[in-house]
Every structure is written in C-alpha cells, then in structure tokens.
C-alpha cells in the first residue's frame, strides 16, 4: 500500500532528522515491488552511492534490463520505454540532491528552488510510472537511481562533494551539479528524438518536450543564481 509521507517534511528536516533517515537507509534496498519513496531514497549517505560506480556495468539495473514488448498498433518503440524508465532514475537523483538543500544550509531562495524541483519531479515520476504501467512495461521505482547511470547524473565523488559542502559552497556545488544534471536530461530527450520512430506517442512527446522546456528554463535560472552567490568565504 502507499506509504504516506507528507512531502514538505523532507526538505525541511533538520540535519539530525536527516541523519536518522540515513541510518534507516542502510537497511536492505527496497525491492522494485515495495515502492520505496523518494524520501527514503533521499537518505543514503555518500558512501552509499558507491554502488553507482561504473553505471550499468556489473550491477543489476533494478529490472531495467527486462525485455520490452511492444504491443501491436502501438505508436511507441523500445527507445520510448527505455527513456521513460531511465528518466525515473534521473529524476530520483535530482530529488535526492534537492532534499539536501535545507540541511546543508542553502540560501532560502535556493531552498525554495530545490523544493520546486522536488515537487515537480516527484509528480513527473508518477507520470512516467503511469505511462509505463498503462503500456504494460516494467515500472522502475526511485531506487533505480542507485544502479542506473543516465547522462548528467552525479558520480559518487560528485555526490560526496555536494554532501560535504555547506552554505554558499553548497549553493555553488548544487547549482553547478544540477545544471550538469539538467543538461543530461536534455541530452536524453535529444537522443530520444534522434532515434528513428521514437517520440511519436503523444504522451511521450508531450512529456519529453515539457522536460526540455522546464529544465531549459531552470538551467537559465540556475545560471543567474550562480552569479548572485556571494564571492569569497562567508
């Protein structure tokens, strides 16, 4: 059944609460069927991300390697399915990053911006999962970001860098890394549309174009925010 967690609590957790959650996260990984929430997923500490090293290689893809069967008459192709599955992992990592903002004393404006990314991408994960489910495809949960490496996603070292920063240093690291992350999403859309016969399904096409519109806009805002971070040590 659905695990009910009030959304705003996560970004507003104190460091202590966050660390408590980190401990919980050391419990065995949620399986695909257990619907681990992005909140629980937001918890693992940097060392926990090491499983991401090497991306696809040598790791389970939490079922992403499950075969794709395209029903007769469908307008989508395998690339559409892979895009939706991969973007769930991509979004989940962005949510993880966003939920670090408060505990790492990001400036208030960046904290609001992080909540916005969190709220936006959480609902988009639901959309992607809904589309995959409706089309009879494997539906990854958010834990897939531990094992799936998509363009722009942070390496364990980058996660460690972000997690080790505070205040303006965090702001700067967050913005730089989130720009990288968003640009990876744009790359994924570009690759999708460059694939013959892909992106013709209306839902996929609308969703992918929304990703481009929203994340391009956010990249612009993040660049502006970088230039407003105080120079030098606080």
């Amino acid at each position, binding site marked *: 059944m659905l695990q009910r967690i009030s959304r705003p609590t*996560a970004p507003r957790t104190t460091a202590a609460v966050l660390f408590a959650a980190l401990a919980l996260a050391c419990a065995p990984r949620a399986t695909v069927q257990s619907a*681990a929430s992005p909140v629980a997923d937001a918890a693992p500490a940097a060392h926990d991300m090491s499983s991401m090293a090497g991306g696809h290689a040598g790791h389970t893809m939490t079922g992403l390697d499950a075969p794709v069967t395209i029903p007769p008459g469908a307008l989508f192709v395998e690339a559409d399915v892979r895009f939706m599955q991969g973007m769930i992992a991509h979004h989940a990592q962005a949510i993880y990053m966003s939920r670090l903002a408060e505990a790492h004393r990001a400036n208030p404006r960046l904290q609001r911006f992080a909540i916005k990314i969190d709220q936006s991408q959480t609902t988009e994960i639901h*959309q992607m999962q809904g589309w995959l489910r409706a089309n009879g495809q494997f539906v990854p949960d958010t834990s897939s970001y531990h094992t799936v490496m998509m363009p722009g996603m942070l390496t364990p070292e980058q996660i460690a860098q972000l997690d080790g920063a505070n205040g303006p240093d965090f702001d700067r690291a967050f913005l730089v890394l989130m720009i990288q992350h968003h640009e990876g999403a744009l790359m994924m859309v570009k690759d999708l*549309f460059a694939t013959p016969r892909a*992106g013709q399904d209306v839902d996929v096409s609308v969703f992918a174009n*929304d990703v481009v519109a*929203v994340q391009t806009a956010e990249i*612009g805002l993040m660049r*502006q925010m970088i230039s407003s971070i105080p120079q030098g040590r606080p």
Partner: protein
Amino acid sequence: MRQIRSFLTITAAAGVFAAAATAGAQTYPTGTDPRDALASGRLDAGVAAKGMSLVSFTTKPAQFDTARGLTFANSDLAFGGDYVYQGNFAGFTIWDVRDAAHPKIVSVIKCTTSQGDPSIYGTLLFISAEGNGNRKDCGSGGVQKPEDHMAGVRIFDVSDPANPRFVMNVETCKGSHTHTIVPHPKKKDVIYLYVSGSQAARPNTELAGCVNGDDPADESNSLFRLDVIRVPLDHPERSTVVTGARIFTGLDAAPRAAGRPARGRPAPTAPGAAPAPPPAPTGPRNCHDVTVYPERHLLAGACGSYGLLVDIRNPEKPVRLSAVADTNFSLWHTAVFSNDGRKVVFTDEWGGGTSPMCQKSSMMEMGGNTTVTISDDRKFTQHAYFKIPSAQTAQENCVSHNGGLIPVPGRDLMAQGWYQGGVNVIDFTDADHPFEVGYFDRGSIDPSPLGADVPVTPAPATPPAGGRARGTIGGSWGAYYFNGYIYSSEIDRGFDVLELKPTDQLSANEIAAARLVRFENYNPQSQPRLVWPAAFPVVRSYLDQLVRNQGLAAARTTAIDQALTAAEAMSGRDRRRALTALAAEVDKDVAGAKDAARVRTMAAEIRRLAAASR
C-alpha cells in the same frame, strides 16, 4: 478571496533575485471551500460554483471519446460568429452555439495533430501541429518516413462549417505548439501567424534550411527565434514562412542584479569547491505562447524562464522592450493584457499541465499567475501572485492555464481555466491584490486513493484498486468569455458553457454591460480592444463599483441611482436633458470622492449616454 501579498516592487532587471526572497511561505487558507472534497467521477463528479452557473455540458464527439492519456485530449478554443472551434490532439470539433443551452456539433475532423490549438480569421481556421507522430496527410498510425512528418500550422477553409476543406500545411522548423494571429497594421488582406514551437529545429532531411545553432543572434539559426508565417487572405494556399523574430537575442544576460556579472565564474572559496559553471547560452529559445494586443502594437511573450514585452509595430521585425524572470515561476506559459494595455497577467504552467500542482502542499507562488505592470517607458514591474485558493487532490492535474478578459467596464476581470482546478474569474484591477470573484469546479475524474494528499510515494508497480492508476488528464484547458458566455474546453469530458451570476463581487449591471460587447472573431491570444456602447448598464456598472468600494458617499450614489432610473424612463430630448443635468451634478462629486477617477469616468459615461439619446 486570497491574494499572495508579495509586493515585488523590484524592477525587471532585478526580478530574478528579489522574487523568491520577498515571497514568504504561503499556505492555503484555513476553513472550508465548497470546492474541497467534491465527489469524483468522469461524468457525474460533484460540482461547486460561485458567481457562475453551468448553462450546458456536452460530451466529446464519439470520435474523440477516450480517457487514454493525452491521446484525443481536447485543447484550446477559438470563436467565430455562431461557432466555437475546439482543438483536439487528434483533430477538431466545430460547435454551433446559437443556443448556448444546447450546443450542436456541426463537424468533427479527425486529423492527428498534437496539440491542435486553433485560431480563426474570417473563414480560415489555423491549427497548430507539433510532435513526431503527425503526418502531412492527417493520418494516424505514426510517421513511417521522415518526409511524411508534418510540424507547423495546418490551414483549413471553414466557409462551410459542416464541410471544412483542407487548404495547406505550412511547415516550420520547430513545429507549432501554439500560434498567434497578428493582423498586418495596414494591409487588410494580410495576417501573420507568430508560431511558438517547442521542439528543437527539425533535421534538414525533413525540412530544408533548419539549423540548430548556439548563437541567438545568428540569422541562420532556427532555434532562437519565433517563426513568422505570412498569410495572404485572398490566397491562403500561398502562405509562407517569411522570417524569424529574434526576440531572444541577448536574453541570457538581461535580468540580473545591478553590478553583478551576467554569468561568470565565481572565485573558488576552498579546495574542492565546485567546478566552474559550464558555458552556454541560457536564455529561452522559445515562447510557450505569445499574446498580442494589436491596437497597442504590443506583445507579451510567455517564454520559458522569462516574460517578455515586445513592440510589434513592424510584425516582421518585432523588438523586445523588457524582460522579467522569477525563480518562483517554472514555465512562463501565457499572458493576458488588461484592456488599457498597462498590465499583464502571466501564468506559470508548473508541472506541464499534467501534474497535480494545486495541492495543499504545493507552493502557492508557483503554478499560478503573476501580475506585471507596464510603465510609461514600456518596462515590466512584477507585483503579486495569484493561485486558486482551494486545495485540489493528487488526482487532479491542476495548474494555472489559459484565459481571457471579461468585458466589465471599470475593472480588469478575466476568466481562466485551471485544468481540474476548474474555471474561475479573477479581478486584477489592483495589480498588488488580485482576487477571485467566482468559480466553477468539478471533482476529480479518477477516484481518490486512500485519501493520500501528496504523491511523494511512487505508486507501486501494481496499483491499488481505485488508486492513481489512470491519472486521467482532464479539466479546463482554457476558459474564455465570448459574447455573453464563458466557454470552457474540458480536456477529457467535453465542452462547457457557463454564465456569470450576480454576487456581491459582480453586479447584474456589470454582467449586462459585459454582454454589450460583441465580437465577430475572437482569438484569446490576439486581444481585441474592448469598447462599450453608451448604455445604462455601463453607467450603472461604475455606480455599482462606487457603492461596492465606497468610492462615493452613500447618499450621493443613492441619488444618482434614482436620477438614472428616472432618466431611463424618459425618452428622446427629455432623457438627454436629464442625463446632461445629472452629469453636471456628478462632476461636482469628483472633488470629494474617495475614488475620484471612477466618479469622473462615470460622469463621462453619463454624457456619452446623453449624447446618444435623441
């Protein structure tokens, strides 16, 4: 009624930085709203309304009847004479609305064309086409060969609404998510279509001459421009893409705080500090849509991370005047000018329209409207936010969406669709205090899963019974006032016709005055100037407003009301004399009135009415 009081008295140049800081944490109002907790159902959902009532609801034509994702979703509306043109991702419907209580389907054209936003000019219907699955021949089944792919604007001749005739496809490099009609300032037989395309430029193999470049100023670059189509009305089959409107050039550096570098590499503060930001242009390369106000030669562009103000005196060479950005906005989506052209309401389509962004926990300053004023030197200043004040469920895709002005004299009123947040009427006369005047809302299409409020937890692979399994996209795509009624395009359910009802916030006279404004064609993103005839309801609208805002002493408003009633009972020269005398009395009220400007306007309206009485 609720306003978010974040008085952003900042200039556009500093907009990016000041916005979020001044907007405090906003919460939904406590207490109950009749819209909360409405019963769900596709065709039998619970309904709540204030200040408006449903005149008719008609389901989709059978050809488009499905609740499967976005496929066959209804999109936007255009208005011409007795007909309303309703776009659909798979074609369009023409409704005969002569009897608003019983709209009749005149024709249904199946033509796969996401998203199918329509506009009408005379007998020509224009339909936006984007997406990789659209074919030149309108067929379904997808594009098999790249050369069959159609993205741009389809033109139909609807001189016989029962038998629309295909004229041509005009292809553009970025396709057409939306488009806006811009009449030629002098030539009556030429119009332009400003085309907002959301895709990257198409490959040369599909459409020759398209280039995905990095330099917004590069004339050969297709990416950073608004495409412009020139339509000769006598020969629409000769419509062509004439040029690109480069309204984005230089935008990456525009809205920054004074004295700060536009972009630039912050000095590293410690070993291991973040790497330098990656270099690339950051400004938008597309508007979701643009709204023009031809009478004032102005365009308000809702362009990704920016709201733009553009001079369109020369429609082929528009010039950007001002830009505003705001970290609280996700995607500047559409714009509505006030009738005096001094204000703009911008909407933010946070979540793309398919997500439930009006929940109790959703940020109030996002996914709603913002009011912006235009100064004498034609620069934007951002003022306040407005979002529907009722918390929607996780089952309801909801965010600020399309709307247009309601012609009530003396006030800035608009109707607006909020997807499954319903339709509402907003007063933005005071840019710092927009508020809600009325609404119409239905419960969600899908039933609520176990009372969950916020969908943080991804649904399990096997959804619970009754859960957000379908996540049907529905609700009002756009709601627009046209010749007496508010029409709303219901994405999933069909077509709604609504009527304004008097409340303490909107009088019968104001509603009657609105009905006096009639248009032959109406395309919400090509705003006509509202002009009222000399009429008693117009004068009485001002009087009602003075009573409501206590802009004039009660004894005087009562006396004026009686004098108007007496004059209305007269005719010809007697009426003229009585009204002229009344106007002279009202002139004297100006000095002592709290709302002197409105009293002065009312005196002028009484004089105009006197002149019309003979």
